[in-house]
């Protein structure tokens, strides 16, 4: 294990540099965030840099992995729910799964390794806590252990029955999106927390993409909101609107129109590739993407205010 503790200096990097330096062909990559805070900006940069043979892990592959599979970066998916949330299926992925051993495009079929949500969370938990497995009461009397032999039944060492175990998942790279971080990578999130903390601590390398970088004093004024310390962060990328078309609590809403639009686009391979040409390969990065979306569309996704109350941590000197 590399010692990735760093002194508290700036880790701010461009998306291009962070992906080029930290994501390598053949890696296991986890872009986590459960419907909330999905780093589409990072996924698009991985496509743009034409990374190859990645194993992509996520509870819900969502549109971002559908796009990345269409972009040819992946050889395998590790997941628990494969769909376009609230809309339907993930069509680019389905084309690589339902076609048999060789897809129509000539690519090999996508390898699948599937769990349940709790199983995936448990895998990150085991990875983050340096344990050989995570025990859970799921999977009994189902066909899932047969479909995935890494899900195994084990005896309780205390003689009170059996449970199922899932193995640790330690991504080479975890990428998360957050509302804010300090330049050193101390990261704060509010709204749905998903399993970003577990996936971050389980990873060998960690990229945090944020709406804004804030002064360390802002972080220190509200330490309960910090989910990840800069200690384990390798790069901080500032990418406002980087989670679109997913959302950021308090900043912008899910762009449901895009989730609906993706369904017909992704049903057609040529339309899918044309979309990638227009919105990924044809743009230098997220700033151009936001400009292309247009101010009206961006403005339409801004929520009204609902600020939290202020708590008093107390001054103890």
């Amino acid at each position: 294990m590399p010692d990735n503790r760093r002194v508290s200096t700036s880790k701010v990097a461009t998306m291009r540099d962070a992906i080029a330096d930290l994501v390598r062909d053949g890696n296991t990559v986890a872009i986590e965030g459960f419907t909330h805070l999905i780093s589409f900006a990072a996924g698009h940069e991985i496509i743009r840099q034409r990374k190859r043979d990645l194993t992509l892990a996520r509870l819900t592959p969502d549109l971002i992995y559908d796009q990345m599979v269409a972009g040819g970066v992946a050889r395998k998916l590790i997941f628990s729910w494969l769909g376009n949330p609230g809309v339907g299926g993930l069509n680019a992925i389905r084309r690589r799964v339902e076609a048999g051993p060789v897809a129509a495009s000539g690519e090999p079929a996508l390898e699948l390794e599937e769990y349940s949500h709790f199983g995936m969370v448990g895998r990150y938990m085991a990875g983050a806590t340096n344990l050989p497995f995570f025990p859970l009461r799921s999977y009994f009397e189902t066909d899932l252990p047969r479909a995935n032999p890494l899900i195994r039944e084990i005896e309780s060492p205390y003689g009170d029955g059996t449970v199922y175990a899932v193995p640790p998942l330690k991504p080479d790279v975890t990428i998360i999106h957050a509302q804010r971080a300090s330049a050193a990578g101390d990261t704060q999130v509010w709204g749905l927390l998903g399993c970003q903390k577990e996936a971050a601590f389980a990873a060998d390398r960690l990229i945090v993409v944020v709406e804004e970088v804030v002064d360390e004093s802002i972080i220190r004024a509200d330490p309960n909101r910090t989910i990840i310390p800069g200690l384990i962060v390798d790069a901080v990328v500032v990418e406002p609107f980087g989670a679109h078309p997913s959302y950021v609590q308090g900043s912008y809403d899910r762009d449901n129109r895009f989730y609906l639009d993706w369904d017909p686009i992704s049903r057609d391979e040529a339309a899918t590739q044309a979309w990638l040409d227009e919105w990924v390969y044809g743009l230098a990065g997220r700033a151009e993407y936001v400009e292309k979306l247009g101010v009206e569309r961006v403005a339409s996704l801004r929520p009204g205010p609902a600020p939290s109350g202020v708590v008093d941590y107390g001054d103890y000197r």
Partner: protein
Amino acid sequence: MATPRATAFSQSEMMIVAAARELAGQRVCFVGVGLPNIAVNLAKRTVAPDLELVYEAGVFGARPARLPLSIGDPTIVTGATAVTSMFELFAFYLQGGLIDVGFLGAAQVDRFGNINTTVIGDYDAPTTRLPGSGGACEIAINARQVFIIMRQSARSFVEKIDFRTSPGNLGGADNAARIRREQGWLGRGPSVVVTDLGIWHFGDDGEMRLDSLHPGATLEQVRETIGWEPRIADDLAVTPAPTDEELRLIRVELDPGGAYTK
């Protein structure tokens, strides 16, 4: 057969109202998107005002101000009692036994309430690749009871499901009760199936039985949309039609765009 009523309603509205009424007296409910979400929110405004809404994305005590577009919509966060990590939600709340009712849908269900949401056809070369478990497998095992809400069709109500994603009453109630007890599961399995045609409960032997037929639906329709000879209650009831107030809540407050109810 249908009772006279003031207002016409859709099959989806009948499903939502029937599911909501089944939630009377329940306290903590694990909600899914779509019809279950509307049913649970309707129950909270009618038969179960103390109902706590739990979303697998990590929210306890949600008060959604609009119809959530997905399982992780930001509206379930604003104003909620608690936001939890998904680990806490699945470990403490679900596996810890705090969930009274979990809602599940299915691509295929059998007479014992076993559920397939993984593949149609062979697992390694599927005809249709479905989403997979998500949280369904652990909801089926750990929620105190499971409500299934889905439309009836011969393709979905089948003699034998292609893949068992989530266990119901397994091969029958005796077997299921023994296994659930021996394995330390806290859940008792499926208790009700609400469809577009009627309401099914599970009998002592673990098989679903049609207890109530929705107004306008016929037994012939029920038999045409099911892959086995269905068990029909001797005292088969007719589901009371949605009241004007139930329809108002659905149409005005819960799904004003008619996204799930038309």
